[in-house]
């Protein structure tokens, strides 16, 4: 090898000694142990990369209550009729059989950072050397007055994958002719910035086929939102007159709901609705809070390795992390997981640690074969993950480019799910 290896190493010179057999840091208990909580975009990826790259030198346990993970990504395409629910479901079988990951289907209900153990709902208590939390989101109580989690059947959020998405679709299909769909959009920061607006596009697509006189109303506390120009151009083009959005100037931030009466009060004016999709304000999945690594709604992390500011042996990935500039997306969580996996492996086995680099691209579908995208890459700077440049699709792009962008998104979906689940 001609190049000096150290050229490549951004962190620490320890790597010089690493070409020999990995040195393993484990206390009295044999192999070092990593526990990953949450088998989603961040957690499944982290577990897979640590297991794959450490070749059995690290004991990896993945704790995830569900046996089938239904992606939120592409769930809007299910609402639009472009995907089936089965297309969105992924199991953990390969992670267990091909990567030797110990997959436990249970909830983590507690973390004791002093004794370094995770407690499961089933009662067991598991020790870790490094703990990675990627629990996704929970909702902030009271953020939409009148709504709480017990109202999710009347007014679904469909902001976690699976049954909520199915419920929302069934409600849309059952709308009376000319009925009203209302979305209560979330305040920043929330998972998938373009997600609510892609959803509006896909709901409009479905309604324009089965219920063309139906109307869609968005109550939005935000002045601006992701890919706004692109969405508005598309809505005008495909769904003219169907969609109305009330931003904060028109009271979109002053909303309460009555799930029993199916009404939405927007700044004092009451709408009787047929479907109400309430996407509340969000916070880190509760286990992050229980672990004591959150500050406010999210868990602050160090941008070099995703370790929490609170505890160097506890890492938080994905939506739950307060990391800086990255949007909360599956792509981001997957990207952060690989940086974290490299760092955790390095810390436990002295394998080489490379500089953190992150990236994200989010595709959205506006109508059939009309895809757009936005992306950026990121590196640690100023104590956070900072953007180093990006791009966004342009308004007025031709149909061939938009179709290619959609096809690319399908390739991405296949790619990221293979990267998560093997």
């Amino acid at each position: 090898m001609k190049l000096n290896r150290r050229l490549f190493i951004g962190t620490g010179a320890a790597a010089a000694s690493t070409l020999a057999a990995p040195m393993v840091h484990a206390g009295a208990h044999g192999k070092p142990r990593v526990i990953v909580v949450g088998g989603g975009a961040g957690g499944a990826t982290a577990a897979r990369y640590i297991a794959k790259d450490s070749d059995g030198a690290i004991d990896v346990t993945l704790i995830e209550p569900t046996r089938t993970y239904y992606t939120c990504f592409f769930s809007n395409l299910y609402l639009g009729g472009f995907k089936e629910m089965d297309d969105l479901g992924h199991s953990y079988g390969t992670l267990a059989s091909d990567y030797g990951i110990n997959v436990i289907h249970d909830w983590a209900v507690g973390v004791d950072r002093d004794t370094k153990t995770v407690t499961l709902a089933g009662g067991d208590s598991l020790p870790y050397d490094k703990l990675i939390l990627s629990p996704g989101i929970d909702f902030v109580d009271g953020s939409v007055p009148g709504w709480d989690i017990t109202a999710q059947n009347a007014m679904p959020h469909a902001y976690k994958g699976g049954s909520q998405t199915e419920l929302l679709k069934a409600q849309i299909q059952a709308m009376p002719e000319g009925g009203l769909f209302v979305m209560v959009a979330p305040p920043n920061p929330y998972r998938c910035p373009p997600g609510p607006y892609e959803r509006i596009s896909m709901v409009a697509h479905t309604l324009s086929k089965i219920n063309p006189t139906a109307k869609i109303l968005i109550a939005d506390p935000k002045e601006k939102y992701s890919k706004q120009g692109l969405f508005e151009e598309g809505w005008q083009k495909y769904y003219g007159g169907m969609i109305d959005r009330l931003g904060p100037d028109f009271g979109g931030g002053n909303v309460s709901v009555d799930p029993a009466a199916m009404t939405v009060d927007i700044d004092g004016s009451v709408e009787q609705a047929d479907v109400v999709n309430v996407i509340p304000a969000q916070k880190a999945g509760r286990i992050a809070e229980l672990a004591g690594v959150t500050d406010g709604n999210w868990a602050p992390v160090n941008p070099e390795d995703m370790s929490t500011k609170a505890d160097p042996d506890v890492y938080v990935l994905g939506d739950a992390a307060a990391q800086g500039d990255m949007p909360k997306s599956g792509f981001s969580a997957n990207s952060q997981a690989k940086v974290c996996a490299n760092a955790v492996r390095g810390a436990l086995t002295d394998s080489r640690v490379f500089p953190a680099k992150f990236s994200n691209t989010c595709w959205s579908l506006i109508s059939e074969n009309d895809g757009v995208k936005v992306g950026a890459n990121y590196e640690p700077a100023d104590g956070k993950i900072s953007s180093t440049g990006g791009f966004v699709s342009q308004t007025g792009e031709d149909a061939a480019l938009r179709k290619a962008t959609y096809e690319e998104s399908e390739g991405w979906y296949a790619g990221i799910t293979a990267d998560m689940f093997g």
Partner: protein
Amino acid sequence: MRSGFLKYGVAAFLAAALPASAQEFGDAAAGEAVFGRCSGCHQVGPSARNRVGPQLNGIFGRQAATVDGFRYSNAFQRAGAKGLEWHIDELDAFLENPKQLVPGTRMSFRGISDEGERADLIAYLRQYSDSPANIPEADPTAMATDHEVAPDILALVGDPEYGEYLSSECTTCHRVDGQDAGIPSIVLWPEEDFVIAMHAYKAKVREHPVMNMVAGRLSDEEIAALAAYFAKIESQ
């Protein structure tokens, strides 16, 4: 053996997909221009070498997946083992819709829908097959460099371990098993082709916003590292 391949149920497909017109000979000179769509990955002619795709000399009558030194996808190895042999009909069907004849091929190409263009291309390729005497002493096929890369950059030896780490940015979209629906395959490319392509994205002489962004921040050493890793990746 051709019949061996047909035994496996492809006969019906070939019969349906291949009207008699495939037997008509195209115009080899016109086919040279059509070959421009292939030359990004394939070479043909006296100095042809394996690149992203195998070299195409002597393709007529050859069993699929048997060019020396080229690492084929599992799908192509299977098709070859089942007896797929390249003749006009097979080439025509493959060129029309590669994924239909060989599902799982790494060849990122949609196919050529125009029958005449396919016939021209096949006529062009045929020149390099009949017998050595018929192969013209033509100029070597132009290398598919759409971008000049300085020799010292091409000569960099990549660090595959760093490449493996960096590759995790690629594998969010590009699949390590070589499947390429919607997103091209990047596994098992010759290092030089990989390096040239990435520098073309970096310099924005190849347009693709995601790739321009990804390549934009990679150093010369990082590109070499990625090329070294992806050139040798074991299929997973």
